[in-house]
């Protein structure tokens, strides 16, 4: 059974570089979410895609962050000119279009900025 898949599982990069994180949601799930969890913190909402609607980008912390969802399936989260404070676990989740359905999470990408 295919769950939410994220890649890479770990990413180490130098400050100032751009990174791309990938999320493959569960097939048939129209909603897709990105969160991040910094060390010792809770889940911080970043962005939400629902079907063909305009994404809710209200959680993106700066204009260095952007996300796309191509063909209503795979999503990429891009962070440009990375900073050390971007170090965190980036989690993706998807959910069914039916109402009151739980989100299912991937195992995340652990991003470390040197």
């Amino acid at each position: 059974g295919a769950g939410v898949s994220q890649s890479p599982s770990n990413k180490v990069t130098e400050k100032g570089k751009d990174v791309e994180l990938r999320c493959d949601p569960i097939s048939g799930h129209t909603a897709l979410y990105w969160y991040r969890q910094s060390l010792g913190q809770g889940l911080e909402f970043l962005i939400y895609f629902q079907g063909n609607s305009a994404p809710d980008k209200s959680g993106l912390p700066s204009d260095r962050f952007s996300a796309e969802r191509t063909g209503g399936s795979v999503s990429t989260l891009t962070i440009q000119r990375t900073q050390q404070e971007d170090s965190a676990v980036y989690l993706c989740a998807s959910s069914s279009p039916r109402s009151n359905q739980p989100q299912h999470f991937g195992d995340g990408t652990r991003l470390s900025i040197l």
Partner: protein
Amino acid sequence: DQQVKQNSPSLSVQEGRISILNCDYTNSMFDYFLWYKKYPAEGPTFLISISSIKDKNEDGRFTVFLNKSAKHLSLHIVPSQPGDSAVYFCAAKASGSRLTFGEGTQLTVNP
């Protein structure tokens, strides 16, 4: 504005006893509530949910209670097991909106 709050960052319980995790919310439009469990290096896993038309939902050792007038929900785990040691997040949503998560509570069940 933290609409979902878990005021206890940690909880320690003896194996076999009851664990009670608490969560408060402020948005009266929330009508669906969930609990997730998270182990280190893994994504959160859905545990149990409750809609606002109910005040209790039970699944095995896990029971969620909802008190709408107090805007409070709790997760009871009984009996607690060492494998239950994890971070527990509560979450809530209103119809048509996205989930809002609490900050999490680290549960430790001691053998």
